């Protein structure tokens, strides 16, 4: 019984951490229509910043400032945000598929830097020994994980509440206006370029936050955690849950991560040992099938966008 509870806690931590990144992507794609295919790259920036700021000092590698957890989280968001400003300025004038190709390339480049700039990132070995704050407070893995789940829940709750407020604010309505017709928005005196950049940077900060929560939980960071497949997983979560709906984003994270871990469990039990190595490939095929099937059967997602009519128009 305890085993199941620990497993559920573990599962919830990871799916909610992904959920933070999905919320960020939802702000970019769901509300603003920005096709960011480089989610893994911005998560990686946050993850490595967290590792550098809070990790232990080590020889021949930069960082190890042993700063508090919260400083690490804020630092990770700032670093991803700064990265996003540069990327956004260089690419946001591109539309749709060109933006997708460019951001995909950025993620590949960031992963290469993580892999090769040993002084900053520890190279292929990554950085280990990143402290998990819950370990300083309570003993025992289950208590520690439960505490960390609470931390993650607070972060997700704050992000969710902030995003709900943002998208219902005048600025949020402007996002949708730009998504639907940026020429019309510009003709009303709005600045689509500026607003797109703001939404892009905010979304990327959430992706960085997600990466930071992830490394602090698992205790190390390695370049192999930020391959393009992570981007595809986050996208699948958003599409399954329903884009332009923050509840949908979180629901998608839970469902897709649930399918991923359950299929991994089933494969480890059912598939013969000699082809276990291929288990990951089966999971990836399954995620691909879910994405394609969802787009064919229910493109708006499980709970898609709620359509609003202006209260001025209604009366």
């Amino acid at each position, binding site marked *: 019984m305890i085993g199941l509870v620990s497993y559920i806690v573990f599962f919830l931590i990871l799916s909610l951490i992904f959920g933070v990144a999905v919320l960020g992507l939802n702000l970019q794609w769901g509300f603003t229509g920005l*096709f960011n*295919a480089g989610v893994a790259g911005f998560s990686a920036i946050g993850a490595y910043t967290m590792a550098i700021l809070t990790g232990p000092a080590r020889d021949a590698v930069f960082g190890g400032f042993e700063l508090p957890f919260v400083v690490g989280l804020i630092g990770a968001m700032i670093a991803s945000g700064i990265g996003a400003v540069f990327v956004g300025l*260089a*690419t946001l004038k*591109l539309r*749709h*598929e*060109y933006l*997708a*190709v*460019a951001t*995909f*390339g*950025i993620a*590949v*480049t960031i992963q*290469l830097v993580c*892999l*090769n700039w040993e002084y900053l990132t520890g190279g292929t070995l990554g950085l280990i020994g990143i402290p998990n704050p819950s370990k300083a407070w309570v003993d025992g893995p289950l208590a520690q994980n439960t505490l960390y789940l609470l931390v993650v829940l607070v972060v997700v709750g704050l992000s969710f509440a902030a995003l709900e407020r943002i998208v219902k604010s005048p600025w949020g309505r402007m996002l949708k206006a730009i998504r639907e017709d940026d020429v019309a928005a510009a003709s009303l005196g709005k600045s689509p370029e500026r607003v797109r950049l703001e939404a892009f940077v905010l979304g990327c900060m959430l992706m960085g936050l997600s990466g930071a929560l992830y490394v602090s939980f698992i205790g190390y960071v390695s370049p192999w955690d930020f391959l393009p*497949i992570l981007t*595809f997983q986050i*996208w*699948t979560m958003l*599409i399954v849950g329903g884009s332009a709906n923050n509840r949908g984003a979180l629901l998608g994270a839970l469902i897709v991560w649930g399918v991923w871990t359950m299929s991994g469990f089933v494969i480890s039990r059912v598939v013969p040992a000699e082809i276990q*190595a*291929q288990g*990951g*490939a*089966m999971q*990836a*095929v399954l*995620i*691909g*099938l*879910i*994405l*394609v099937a969802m*787009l*064919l059967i229910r*493109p708006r997602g499980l709970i898609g966008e709620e359509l609003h009519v202006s209260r001025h128009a209604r009366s």
Partner: protein
Amino acid sequence: MILQHIADGILSGAIVALGAIGLSFTMKMLRFANFSHSELLTWGAYSALVFVAFFSSFGGIFDLTFGPFSFGPGLILAMLCACVATAIIALLLHRFVFARLSRAAGHMTMVFASFGVALILRHLVVLIWGSDPIYYSRELQFAILLPGNVRVLPDQVFLLGLTVVVVIALHLFMTRSRTGIAMRGVAESPDLARASGVNVDRIITWVWVIGASGAAIGGVLYGMTVQLRPELGFSLILPLFAAAILGGTGSLYGAVLGGLIVGLSENLSVMIIPTTYKPAVPFLLILAILYFRPEGIFGVRDT
């Protein structure tokens, strides 16, 4: 040294060009960035492996190799069969995924779907053939020494020759045949082409067949001169997009020139940046071209 880099650049550029032709055509004529196109190279290469095994089981002339090359008639036949197999895969994907989506929702939905299709195709290769590198043949080859101390393998000469033949054949097809001319019409304006009596669905079938065949040939040539591995196509995504965007989508010569530029700049880049950063070069090219000339070298700016 620099001459060797140029030779290697032209050779890898030829493979990129073969893949980029199809990507460029689908981007222009079906109006979506197909992230799964590069997986067609992988499937072309691996399906040829099946046909190679099939033909070599007959023995006889299929055991022979041509002069200095590592392959014989078996691989040539297998390559043709791989083109057919890959074209069938592409048409099935079009029929059951992309065509349905393009009617139902916007073209961005097709881009998401291509993410999913790419995941499926790539990992099916791992499931079927495993993740270890495979070779068509273990035949040893002796490098040819060209002037300037440049070494090339006979297979690489074949690669370049076949690419030239394919490009010339496509050039003749696009300029001389009614289908080719209609295809260029669809690239310009599908509505106008339809109004002029062009069967747009048939042209789209041709786009997939040509794109998939080019990808299959590129994949087989990659397998022949490098190796077969499941990430073969995936590692070419950015080079293919760079070549297609560089040349201007929808342009045959653009894709070929784009492929050569990508191949050359990747291989020449190792003279100024560490080799480990080589995969980022196509991305820098994409950024540069999108910034300065978004319509590409041969492209026409969409209005």
